């Protein structure tokens, strides 16, 4: 019986104009989105490669260790083809040097605002918005449409169990919607192979899980469509309700949830944090300068009753040590400041995390949010890329700086490449030149290692959303089931 019902359902769907509409729209959109994503990814890779090459070249052209700085770049990942997430919003690079904070700057959208005007189109977007709409289109009249058409009566004049009927409706609509997806999806995968996108096993696992999540997501809308269709007598009514539900769930709730959370739990602004940091730094430097002054006074005190020549000789003897001592002190201050900065960042991050959790929690009242969050976690384009990359870059900066200082020490004292300006009440102003060592050998500079996004690492945070999606789907299906059992077939 079930087989007969499913067969009929499929046949009816395939013969209907909405099937051909869905099929062509899905085919165009999926292939298009994969193609655009691919081109975008390739452009990003090219940009990344030139940028890193150029940055390395700049390093090679440096003539002194002291002024050696570099930049670390965020690496493009093939998964961004399918789930752009926030990867266009988060900065691509941070400069790596002793004076400035690690901060991802130059996001794609701020560099090229033209792409920010209408944003991106990726598989997630298509599934989230277009496919859910089609799922509704497929099921809004599943039950009440047959009632209006009179075929429901005729069907139930036969010994047809209602359970099997609703199950067949569900399976039939599901298959009817999956079929138009499979072919373009396959073409999309072929495109990946054709363009030699470097997909690892992990990537494939992520991609297939993503496709699974997509199926789960539109299954919810199929169940929802059946539910509303089994609750209403007229298909125009059910369609209106579903459209309203769709607008609310897909377009409104996610945004409203996050915005609400933003208002409930305010987070200190970047400017405030910068202010705190700089305030501390200023205080610390002032301390340092005061101590320095004192120390110099002490040092000079020892010279008080020497002759000019003796003083000069004494200074020449000690100046190097003094400078070293001062330098050590300076480094200590720097360390303190970066320690404080770390603490501030930690604090800010915790408060942000609270806000984000609340925002996402509220937005998860909609399966569309759950789906998108799961997809972003899987693809590694969720908002945690920012802190994760910044952490990795901070570690890298420490490594880079200690390497640099090491080199500085090894190759000609602390000041190679810098210059020294002396004021001497006896000899006046003296700028001692540049002890440039010519080119420096940067072949063994530590290389920035981007954080790796393993499949399992993405799957884990996505699990709650998978669970939620399943729950929503089961609830909608169960409710539809119950509603249909009491449906008046006349």
């Amino acid at each position, binding site marked *: 019986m079930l087989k007969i019902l499913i067969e009929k359902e499929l046949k009816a769907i395939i013969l209907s104009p909405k099937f051909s509409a869905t099929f062509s729209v899905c085919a165009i959109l999926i292939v298009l989105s994969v193609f655009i994503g691919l081109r975008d990814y390739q452009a990003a890779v090219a940009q990344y490669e030139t940028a890193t090459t150029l940055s390395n070249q700049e390093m090679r052209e440096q003539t002194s260790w002291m002024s050696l700085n570099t930049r670390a770049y965020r690496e493009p990942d093939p998964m961004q083809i399918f789930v752009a997430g926030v990867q266009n919003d988060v900065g691509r690079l941070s400069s790596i040097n002793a004076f400035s904070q690690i901060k991802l700057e130059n996001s794609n959208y701020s560099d090229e605002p033209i792409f920010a005007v209408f944003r991106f189109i990726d598989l997630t977007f298509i599934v989230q918005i277009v496919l859910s709409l089609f799922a509704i289109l497929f099921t809004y009249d599943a039950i009440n449409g047959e009632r209006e058409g*009179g*075929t429901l009566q*005729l069907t139930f*004049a036969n*010994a047809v169990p209602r359970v099997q009927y609703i199950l067949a409706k569900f399976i039939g609509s599901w298959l009817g919607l999956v079929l138009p997806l499979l072919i373009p999806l396959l073409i999309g995968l072929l495109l990946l192979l054709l363009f030699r996108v470097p997909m690892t096993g992990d990537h494939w696992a992520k991609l297939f899980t993503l496709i699974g999540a997509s199926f789960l997501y539109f299954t919810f809308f199929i169940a929802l469509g059946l539910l509303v269709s089994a609750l209403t007598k007229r298909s125009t009514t059910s369609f209106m309700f579903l459209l309203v539900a769709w607008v609310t769930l897909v377009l409104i709730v996610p945004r409203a949830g996050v915005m609400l959370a933003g208002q409930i739990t305010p987070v200190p602004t970047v400017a405030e944090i910068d202010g705190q940091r700089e305030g501390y730094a200023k205080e610390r430097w002032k301390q340092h300068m005061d101590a320095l002054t004192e120390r110099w006074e002490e040092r000079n005190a020892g010279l008080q009753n020497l002759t000019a020549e003796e003083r000069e000789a004494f200074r020449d003897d000690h100046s190097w040590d003094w400078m070293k001592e001062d330098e050590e002190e300076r480094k200590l201050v720097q360390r303190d400041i970066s320690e404080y900065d770390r603490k501030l960042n930690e604090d800010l991050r915790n408060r942000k995390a609270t806000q984000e959790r609340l925002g996402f929690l509220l937005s998860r009242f909609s399966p569309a949010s759950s789906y998108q969050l799961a997809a972003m976690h899987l693809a590694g384009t969720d908002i945690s890329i920012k802190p994760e990359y910044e952490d990795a870059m901070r570690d890298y900066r420490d490594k880079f700086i200690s390497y640099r200082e090491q080199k500085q020490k090894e190759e000609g004292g602390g000041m190679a490449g810098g210059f020294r300006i002396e004021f001497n009440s006896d000899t006046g102003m003296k700028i001692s030149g540049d002890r440039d060592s010519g080119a420096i050998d940067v072949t063994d500079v530590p290389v920035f290692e981007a954080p790796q996004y393993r499949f399992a690492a993405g799957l884990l945070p996505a699990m709650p959303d998978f669970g939620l999606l399943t729950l929503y789907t089961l609830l909608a299906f169960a409710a539809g089931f119950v509603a249909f059992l009491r449906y008046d077939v*006349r």
Partner: protein
Amino acid sequence: METTSTNEAVTNHAVNSPSQSRAMLAADNLTKRYEDGVLALDHVTFEVNQGHIYAMLGGNGAGKTTTINLFLNFIEPTEGEARINGIVTHKEPLRAKEKIAFVSENVMLYPNFTALQNLDFFARLGGQTGYSKDDYREVLLRVGLQEEAHNKRLKGFSKGMRQKCGIAIAILKDAPAILLDEPTSGLDPKAGFEFIRLLESLRDEGKAILMSTHDIFRARDIADTIGIMNQGRIVMQSQKSDIAGEDLEKLYMKYMAGYMEQVN
């Protein structure tokens, strides 16, 4: 309540019904009060045996469709029960429905399917999986649907064509009981006549047929028993033989009027 109108019927009857005492379709004090308080059926009792046609006569709103819906378990009775081959419909609807075929007042089928596709689906729903395309064609020809229409989508079918498909579906199911709700309304006279012949041949095959109609003359033509229904009650029930000589129209009006007087 035995009929002896045709010899064939008697033989068929004997062959097909092992338990003569049990009626194929039985309404037993069937009562239905809708949620809004309308008492649509008021303790209706009747039986239809195999090889019999029972015609429910009555005006609009008399309760005919309600009766049929109760047999189909589309609604549940407030009181009493409807039985099909002894099976109480609202207790075991699935088992009961295996025994009946139904033709509605306005047969509606899947507009995107062809006649053959519709037939195939509903025949299989009715438990008949062994038919071939030729069987479908044969039945469609038997109910009078021209060959050209067999492979056309139902979208463009007229009401008469759809009714024919509906009866074809009922025939294909080959159930011992057939329910028809005003099947001839909207048919042209020729189609109506052919339809009546078809019903007779089905009766002769031994089917128990319950048909609602407001066409007095057709009812008298083929019914073995006629029940006149008004405001949810059977106000008169008589065998064909009993009213053979009488003017059914007058009788109908008389009962309706009489009933009205009784009420007032």
